[in-house]
Every structure is written in C-alpha cells, then in structure tokens.
C-alpha cells in the first residue's frame, strides 16, 4: 500500500503555527487587561469603589510616557518605572481630595464621581495634546521577531506577556508574603471586620488606591509602543475591564488576573476564528459566567 501524504498535513502545521501565534497575541492582549484589572480589583476590594476612571489611568500612563519621551527624552525602560510612580502620587491625590469624601455613601456616588473624573481627564488631554494621538518609538531591544521552536513571534508581544506575568507575580508575593499585603488582603475581603480588629483601614486605602492607579498606568506604558496613544484610548478599554472583573469575581485579585488573560485569549481566538464577533464573545463569556457562577470564577458566594 502506498503511503499517501495528505495535503492536509502541511495545512495543519500552518494552522498549528497560526494557533500558537494567536495564543501569544491573546496572552499579550491579556497582559494589558490583567495588569489594569488587577488594579481595578484591588481598588474595588479595599475601598468598595467601582473606579470608572481606571481607563483614564491606563490612558494617562500611555500619554505620560509619550510626553516624557518627547519633552525630557525619558525612554521606554525608564518610563516603566517613572510613570507608575507619578501616577501613584496622582492616585493618592485623587483619593485624598475626592474619592475619600464619598466612601461612606452609596457606591453609586463614587461611581459617578470617577465617571465624571474620567470625562474631565479625557477632555484635558484632548485640549493639551489634540485628538489624533501622540507619537512613540519602538523600544530599543524589543523590535523585530524571535524564533521559538519553529514559530515566529513578535518580540514586543512576547515581552508584554512575560512582563505582565512578572508584575502579577511580584504583586502576588507582596500580597502574600508581607504584613502590608496581609492587611490589604484582609481589608479587601471585609473592611468592616478589619476595622473591628483594630486595623486603621482608611490609612491603608489611600496608598492602595494609588497602587491600583499605578498598575493601570503601567499597563498604559506597555501600550504606548503598541497602541494608538489618544485621549479616548481608555474609554472602551474600561468597559472590557469591568467585564473582566465580573468574570474573575468581584474583589478577587487572582480572579481579575486570570480573567484578564482569559479574555485576551477569547478575544484573539474570537478574532481569528469568528471575525468581528470577537468583541461580543467577551460579553457572552461574561453572561455564561454570571449564569453558571454568579460570584465569578474566583469569587466567593458571600462576596457576590
């Protein structure tokens, strides 16, 4: 019997290569989501604030990177450190001046406050830098492609994935291995109970808010070489972040990270195999999760 070489063999190799590329692309997109959603989950957990301005923090992270590059020649690698620090200070300011005063009221008040804040920030950036966006160079050392086991992958996307995982791991270590992390975890899980145990939660939530903003800004710095840097770049982004936090389980930090990468993958596979359907796919995933596990993938029933 003659051995028949199916033409399909070649095709499936090609499909496998494409699948790996889609996976890396999905994980890179997920990296942006995971970092920003991590910050959103921490803020929601510790303060009970649904921070609508989180998309603006992501946007400001990218805009600041571009402005620092053109005015002070601060390059990508330095921006990865400087921008989150600046945004940490900005977050502290916002918490002290605005968010704090509404914490005792219904969550809706801070939702509306941060919604208004996001509109203001978007318009301020529009006024200062216009609407068509800011230029940004490709960071040194991350241009071009890398060959891994026969698959060609863009270096930058691989970097975004690895870097975001690394940051998530560092945050995880800080949360689980330090006393500050322990207190943040407790305050996130049940702030009232932490108060009753003698913990001054309000002293902790200011830096926690700043931290959440800083991580979102870090996601924005990563986006600067890869996405259009415009005043409105966070507007749709934040909607997807909310979907991610719901999928992961409200207030669950691990859930936000896992769901962030998951949504990135769903988006990539959706785009690859279902075209323009991709963006709806995320929300279908959200609906399924809400129906099957109302508290989210990692949410506790009592937290829902």
């Amino acid at each position, binding site marked *: 019997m003659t051995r028949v070489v199916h033409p399909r063999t070649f095709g499936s190799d*090609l499909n496998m290569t*494409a699948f790996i*590329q*889609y996976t890396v*692309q*999905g994980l*890179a*997109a997920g990296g942006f989501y995971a970092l920003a959603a991590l910050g959103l989950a921490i803020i929601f957990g510790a303060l009970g604030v649904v921070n609508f301005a989180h998309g603006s923090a992501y946007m400001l992270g990218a805009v600041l990177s571009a402005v620092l590059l053109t005015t002070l020649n601060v390059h990508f690698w330095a921006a990865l450190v400087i921008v989150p620090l600046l945004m940490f200070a900005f977050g502290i300011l916002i918490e002290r001046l605005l968010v704090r005063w509404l914490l005792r009221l219904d969550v809706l008040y801070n939702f509306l406050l941060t919604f208004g804040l996001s509109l203001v920030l978007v*318009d301020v950036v*529009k006024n*200062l830098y*216009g*609407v*068509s*966006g*800011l*230029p*940004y*160079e*490709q960071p040194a050392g991350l*241009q*071009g*492609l890398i060959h891994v086991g026969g698959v*060609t992958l*863009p*270096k*930058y*996307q691989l970097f975004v994935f690895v870097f975001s995982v690394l940051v998530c791991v560092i945050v995880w270590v800080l949360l689980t291995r330090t006393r500050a992390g322990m207190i943040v975890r407790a305050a996130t899980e049940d702030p009232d109970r932490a108060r009753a145990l003698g913990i001054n939660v309000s002293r902790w939530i200011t830096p926690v808010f700043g931290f959440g903003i800083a991580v979102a800004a870090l996601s924005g710095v990563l986006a600067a*070489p*890869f*996405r*259009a*840097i*415009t005043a*409105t*770049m966070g507007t*749709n*982004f934040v909607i997807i972040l909310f979907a991610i936090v719901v999928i992961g389980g409200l207030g669950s930090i691990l859930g936000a990270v896992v769901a962030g990468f998951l949504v990135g993958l769903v*988006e*990539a596979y959706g*785009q*690859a195999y279902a*075209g*323009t359907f*991709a*963006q709806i796919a995320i929300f279908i995933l959200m609906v399924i999760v809400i129906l099957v596990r109302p508290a989210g993938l990692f949410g506790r029933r009592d937290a829902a």
Partner: protein
Amino acid sequence: MAHTRRKVVGAVALLSSAMLLAACAGPAATSTSKLTDGKVVIGVLNDQSGVYKDLSGPNSVIAVQMAVDDYKAKYGDKAVATNIQIVKADTQNKPDVGNVKAEAMYDRQQADVILDVPASSVALAVAKVAAAKKKLYMNVTAATTDLSGPTCNKYTFHWAYDTQMLAKGANGVVAAGGKTWAIVYPDYAFGQNMSKSFTAAVEAAGGKVVASIPTPFPNDNFATFITKAQASNPDVIGIMAAGGDLINFVKQYNTSGAKAQLAVGLMFITDIHSLGVDQFTGTTFTDAWYWNYDKKNRDWADRFLTLTDTRPSFAHAANYSAATQYLEAVQRAGTDNADAVVKELEGKKLEDLFLRGGEVRADHSVIHDSYTAQVKTAAQVTEDWDFEKIIATNPAKDAFGPVNPECKL
C-alpha cells in the same frame, strides 16, 4: 504648550474681533446690498471635540476665515458680499446632532452655506437638510460616494475626495508589482464602502484580492487580524481603518514582522504626525492635497501656521477652497440667492489653492488632481510636518471614478 495656546487664543480673538467688526459695518452696507438678508453667513459644521477635531475642527473655521479675508482683500469696494459672518457648530459625529445643528444653522443663524461636515453618516443627514431648506451645502471631509450618488441634490456639492478617488491609488501599487491584496477593513459604513471601492480598483488594475477581513470598530487589538491577513501571503495588505484604529493597526503591523507592503486607504497628515514618520516610512497612499507640494501651497500653509501653530491637512485647504469658490460664485451672481449661486457653480472649471484642474461635475462631485504620496524616511524629513514625497500627480479626469449614474439631477 503655553506658546501654542497663546497662538490659538490670539487666532480666536482675531476671529471674533473680525466678526464683531463685520457686524458693526453691517447696517451701513445693507442699503446698497443685493444680499437676500443683508449679509452672507458661512456655517462651518464639523467635529469640534472628537476624533476629527485635529484634521478638521476649529482650524477649518480659521481656514474659512482666511478665505473671507482674501475675498475682501481681492474685491475691496467692489465686493458683493460686504458683510460676511462665520458661524460654527459641533456635530459630535452623530447624525441626529448634525441634523439638528444644520437646521438651526440654516434657520436661526441664517446660514447661506454649510461647509466641512466629516463622518459619512452625518454628511448624508446634512445633505437631506440642505435639499429641504434649498440652501447650499459643500461637503469637504466626508468620504462616502453616496453624497454624489443616491443622496445627491441640487444644493449639495462634494468637494475634496471620496472612496473611489482614494482607491485609485491602488492602480499605482498594482502596477508596481503589488498584484495580490489582503484588505482589512472596519466593519461599518465607511470601511465597507472603502473595501468595495478598493476591491474594484485592484481588480480593474489587474490585481487580485485574496483576502477580505472585517474587523470590529472601534478596535485596539489588530494582531490576530494581521496574522490572518499574512496567512494568504499577499503582496500588499490594504488597511481601510481611519484615525486611532489606523494608528493601532500600523503600530501592531510594525511589531508583527509582516513582510507584505502596507497600503493605507485614507490617511491624513495628522495621522503621520501622531504616529511618527518612522512607523509609516515607505507607505504609499492617495492624497487630495499636500501643503509642501509647491510654493503656492507652502505660502498658504505658512499663513496657516502663524494662525494655528500647525500645518494644514488637506481638509483645511479644501475648506478654504470651498469658501473661496462660494464667495466667487456670489460675486459672479451678484447675489447670495441659493439658486443663482448654484447656477454659477454647476459645470464650472475651477482653479485655486486646492483645486488643480478642478471641475464641478454633473453629479456635483468636484473633481481635481490627486496625488500619490509616499511617507518619507526620518532622515528625509527636514522640518516638522514635512512627511510626504509626492511621487505622482494624477490628472483630475483619472483621479476620480465615473459620474455616478444613481444621481438624478
């Protein structure tokens, strides 16, 4: 930044004082005027705050003011339009808002003509208002061919460009060896229209479209679509997205290591400025006008620079052209009566800063020479905004599609 803002504030102050002076001079002139209501009101209706703010927006108003100043300087005492006002409004790129604002402009502010109007859906809505009010409407910044097709009417003129004109750029690319194309387009009215026009143009030029990939709109993640486009191994990947989506696509395209040549369907100079010339180097596209093409353009662009602190997009120049040709038509007609002005425009051959070999066609599409532009390398850029090398000039008769048979005038 403070410098820029001072300039903008200065320009606005200049503008408003000019308007105030014009208003003061008004009553004296009305006695001898042949104007229907003693004044000519030019309405600039566009996006004052959203995605098209930079490429049209407030600077379109300044371009129109330049046209008014030039008209006054040219005719002096002999000017028919002695009292010219400019009014502006923001459509927010929403058809319903555009509809209401256009009605208010024609009725309450007594606008004799409306200019600019980016975003195809808004542009089509305003065309219907113009037809109903029997007032002039010169669309500058919308791309849809429907303006001179199904929704064409006696009072609507389509001034600067359309999707078929943009698609003509494919000819040159195919001729230069880019035979097979993958077209990536945002899945909404503009993108679909662009995709159709480009597919037709590529095939007419003897090329082949091997993949046609719709993407969500708006979208910030194109990596997967780029991989998909690459899978068909095309010579050229044509991207039909505009604004922020275009920039997202190009940034991600450049990190993807894709080897196909990139062709951009619609590009404004503001896009190159915002992304940086490096990311676009070598890309070819069809331009309607370029500020550094010749001395005439450059002189005008220098005036524009002093008023706005930025270089003009082709839409700014086209608004200047539309306002100029409107005022010239009023001058020839000796009145601002809409029907008389339309008569002075129809079938005319026009020549100005923007219109080279210009002609108002039977379907009210205003054709003119277009340009095949290539983005320079960073080393070739000698001053800010000098991003384009014009590699070919396409004569007006070849630059646009045929007269639209769907238009019955």
